[in-house]
């Protein structure tokens, strides 16, 4: 495992200026992904998982946001050091993103063809080489024709029947699930190295969720994708991913393989989270929650941010816990454990 990871987030600190003061939204996020990984980032609402995901393509509005410390390394290069133009080129070439709500993420005033062809053109070519729509040179026409063919191919890839015909439709003529398929097609247009999916099924109803997850699974296999999947749904994690990182209040608290995490959760927060999921093996037990509330991020607790709610709290919890390696794949940020390696 000495090769450079595909994505490595190191000690990422992000603050937001709010009316109540400075919210320390991310306070030292560490995360590593190898090429080919399908990694889930889970946590409650407000724990910073979406912000971590948005920090990679640098789509966090700044101001009010501000990255105060840390690195986002993509194959060893720090994305935070790139200029806006380099970043735009980087997003086009290496990243694909899917967002939560397929209704608001497509532009309502343009046909799917227009949007998908632009996605193809700007991901496959440098922005200044994409011809304007009024350019009718043979090169421009060929480019548009190729992009159109690629668009049809992508529609088929994401399982939209009649893809060629449906390209002429507008977003409002598609159902929610179909729109999410279109958005996946757009994200994949340039064959990205990394697909970041920010709660891609949260806004869909359950049967459609299953279809979209199935599609993502198929695409991962077919295209050998690396995926960072943001979700708060542990069922989605179990069905889709191999690895998982659990976040709490702006930090990753546990990283492990999915199997290990469900069988053997180490961090008290993870244990609470998994206990809170009803299973068919414990039918009559009432649902168990984690007592307390997520902390106010303008005044976060010192040390381990979970300690005020932790059933196993100790004096050392006032200090920020280091990563403890329990096995090659299992890391936990908790004072209860010692390095096993």
């Amino acid at each position, binding site marked *: 495992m000495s090769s450079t990871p595909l994505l490595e987030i190191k000690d990422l600190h992000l603050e937001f200026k709010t009316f109540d003061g400075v919210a320390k939204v991310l306070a030292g996020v560490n995360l590593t992904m190898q090429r080919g990984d399908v990694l889930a980032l889970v946590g409650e609402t407000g724990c910073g998982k979406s912000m971590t995901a948005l920090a990679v393509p640098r789509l966090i509005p700044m101001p009010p946001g501000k990255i105060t410390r840390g690195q986002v390394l993509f194959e060893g290069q720090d994305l935070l050091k790139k200029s806006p133009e380099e970043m735009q080129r980087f997003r086009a070439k290496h990243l694909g993103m899917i967002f939560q709500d397929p209704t*608001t993420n497509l*532009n309502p005033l*343009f046909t799917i063809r227009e949007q998908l062809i632009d996605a193809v053109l700007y991901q496959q070519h440098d922005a200044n080489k994409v011809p304007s729509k009024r350019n009718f040179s043979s090169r421009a026409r060929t480019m548009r024709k190729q992009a159109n063919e690629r668009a049809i191919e992508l529609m088929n890839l994401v399982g939209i029947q009649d893809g060629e015909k449906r390209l002429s439709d507008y977003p409002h003529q598609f159902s929610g699930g179909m729109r999410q398929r279109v958005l996946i097609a757009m994200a994949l247009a340039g064959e990205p190295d990394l697909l970041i999916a920010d709660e891609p099924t949260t806004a869909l109803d359950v049967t459609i969720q299953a279809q979209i997850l199935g599609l993502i699974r198929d695409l991962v296999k077919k295209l050998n994708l690396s995926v960072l999947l943001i979700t708060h749904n542990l069922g989605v994690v179990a069905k889709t991913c191999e690895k998982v990182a659990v976040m709490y209040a702006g930090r990753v608290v546990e990283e492990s393989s999915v199997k290990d995490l469900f069988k053997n959760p180490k961090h008290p927060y993870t244990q609470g989270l998994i206990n809170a999921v009803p299973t068919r093996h414990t039918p009559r037990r009432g649902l168990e929650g984690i007592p307390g509330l997520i902390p106010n991020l303008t005044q976060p607790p010192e040390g381990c941010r979970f300690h005020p709610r932790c059933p196993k709290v100790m004096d050392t919890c006032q200090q920020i816990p280091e990563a403890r390696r329990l096995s090659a794949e299992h890391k936990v940020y908790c004072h209860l454990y010692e390095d096993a390696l």
Partner: protein
Amino acid sequence: MKLGSYFLRRLLLLIPLLFGLSLLTFTVSRILPGDPVGLAAGPQATEEIKESLRKEFGLDKPLPVQYLSYIGNLFRGEWGQSLYSRREVASDLKVYFPATLELTLAAILFAGIFGTLLGVVSALNRNKLPDHLARVVVLFFVSFPAFWLAMMFQLVFGLALDWFPIGKRLNILMTPPQTITGLYLLDSILTWNWKAFRMAAWHLFIPALVLSFGALASITRITRANMLEALDKDFVRMERALGMPDRVVIFKYVLRNAFIATLTIIALEFGWLMAGAVLVETIFDWPGLGLYIVESSLRLDFQPIMGITIIYGIVFSLVNIFTDMAYGLLDPRIRYG
């Protein structure tokens, strides 16, 4: 085509609208206190003279009959006569209306283009120097009364700098381009008369600029607000995430979302400009409808008043129809029902 049939239907609906408008104006202009005949005939006129005038203009007949005969004449292309100057209203309108229309169109075009641009620049530089600058400049011009600005522009650009003429549509020594539409710019293009085009544009520039300031301000503010709203939409983040350059995201995808509101305000402002052109026309000696309206109204000269009202009604209705059609072209979700 759907759009074509929609247009025809709206045109047909225009007919009852204009009937209503004419009935209303007719009634109001007749029940207003005051004696138009007395005003026209002058203070020394005898009862007989007034009586004969009344007879000539059909004022001795009952009101419904007067209205019906007016409408009947209208269909024969007779818009009546001015009680005062005895000139045909139709021929007066033919002279004055195109001048006002050209001035208003130029002003709204100017306000529309620069207002949209300033709005976009302001939104993209929200609360930074260009935004504040645009706000201050726009407020500066809209805060001064139009007549004062008009005179200042005349003084500075006309008299002191001598860059622009201080009034009129053309040099008095110049023959206007052959009349096709009555809009000098359009006519000179249609007849390939470039000299007239240059002159007409030169004369038009300052009056149109002064007239446009009010509209420019509202268009800028509305565009700014709607750009900010559109920039905040999820699809903007998505388009950026796909790696599209900002110029494509902003000018292709965001602007169209913001422009629907801008279009509404442009249509509204057009009406205001046309009605408000009178001050600018008076100062720049622009032979438009403005003065004609004021004089006719003061003299209760009902035939011109009717004619002007109907023309305005037609123009506003057409602007509205075109705006509604443009909505549909901009936003596919809008259907013509």
